[in-house]
């Protein structure tokens, strides 16, 4: 019915992978829809990141617990029901916390259901791994996603509105770059962050290659 499971031991790498090597936004370029749409302010970005992390953790755990009971023919349908359940719960929770936040996030809360990070984790990881590894990996991925959203949201809010988390940073003489909180600003800032990531990775690889050369020469 299914492939034999290869359980992964829980290590620091299980968590850190989501933050860095497999960062869902900056490396895998997944979930671009909320990344571009709700990062017009830091608070929206943080709320979206936390909501997605909660859904990711809960749905991955349940999928991991039920992994032996789910026949593969109905696995996607089952994952979608599980994810939709937790998204509905988050939707109610955000309404209960703040209606302003709920209105600012709009339809993107409900759209977490089709966020490919969550479905991807369920299919590629949670359905094959034990609960512990799934939880740690999901937490890493969620944190990676939240940090990425915050990176975009903070830059866009500072440049586009002259504030961070609603706190005014500059004097009244500052002319906000309104384009930064409009959709094109999302693409600009995402592009800039991807550039930074690519540049850093390239430098690191270069340094490793140079080190390898030095050790090879020294022999």
């Amino acid at each position, binding site marked *: 019915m299914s492939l034999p499971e290869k359980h992964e031991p829980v290590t620091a790498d299980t968590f850190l992978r989501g933050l860095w090597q497999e960062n869902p936004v900056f490396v895998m370029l997944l979930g671009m829809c909320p990344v571009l749409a709700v990062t017009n302010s830091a608070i929206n970005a943080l709320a979206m990141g936390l909501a997605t992390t909660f859904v990711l953790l809960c749905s991955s755990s349940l999928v991991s617990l039920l992994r032996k009971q789910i*026949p593969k023919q*109905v696995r996607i349908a*089952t994952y979608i*029901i*599980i994810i939709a359940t937790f998204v509905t*719960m988050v939707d109610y929770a955000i*309404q209960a916390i703040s*209606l*302003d936040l709920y209105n600012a996030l709009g339809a993107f809360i409900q759209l977490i259901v089709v966020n490919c990070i969550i479905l991807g984790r369920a299919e590629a990881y949670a359905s094959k791994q034990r609960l512990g590894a799934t939880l740690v990996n999901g937490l890493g991925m969620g944190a990676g996603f939240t940090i990425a959203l915050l990176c975009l949201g903070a830059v866009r809010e500072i440049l586009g509105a002259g504030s961070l988390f609603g706190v005014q940073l500059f004097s009244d003489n500052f002319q906000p770059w*309104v384009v930064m909180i409009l959709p094109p600003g999302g693409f600009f800032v995402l592009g800039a962050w991807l550039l930074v990531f690519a540049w850093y990775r390239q430098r690191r690889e270069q340094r490793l290659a140079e080190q390898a050369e030095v050790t090879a020469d020294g022999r």
Partner: protein
Amino acid sequence: MNRPATPPAIPAALTVPMLRTLGLVAALSGFLVVLAHHLSLPLIEENKRIAIERALFKVIPGAVTRRDYLLTATGIQPFGETVTDQGMHLYAGYDTEDRLAGVALETAAQGYQDVIRILYSFDPACECIRGIQVLKMAETPGIGDKIAKDPGFLQNFAALDARLDTMGDGLAHAIVSVRNGSKTEPWQIDAISGATISSKAVARMLNDSAQQAAPVIMRHLHVLQTPAGTAP
């Protein structure tokens, strides 16, 4: 002639586990959703009440308490007495001495990006609109969203004329938006330059709502002025 392709047969032995899994997961899902709904409902209702009161006391100057009414084509009655989909929800605001300070109504119209919903106050004493508060919008930041914050635009609603015509069936002058800087009459709204569509939407929704509601409010003003606790 091509025969329709038959889908691959699912082994009969799998039907039961499939049904069992989907049934179990669906039941669990239903339970969790209902639980979340029940737990969050009182908090959500409270948030909605706070949001509406915050907006209400901002648009009705001097109001400290509120009473809810239902406004229909035939009259005004306390909200919740009859269950009906017809009519508009009307909020009456009262000052510290329980005198009517003004009424507020919700209205909506299509804006540039999405529907704009606002709360506006109508002052029966001057037959004018005294203020607006945007409840929900998705207008372009920095352009269309000025309808909520721009002091020049909000100045239009310090006393926007909404007098009734001689028959008392509608407004004497329709509320319209005019090009920025060309307002000459008290029933005109000076549009925000660069945000004509959003400004026009505000004028249109105010006109549509006031044309219907203002005549009924003026005709049944005594219902609203009756002090709390006494029968009308």
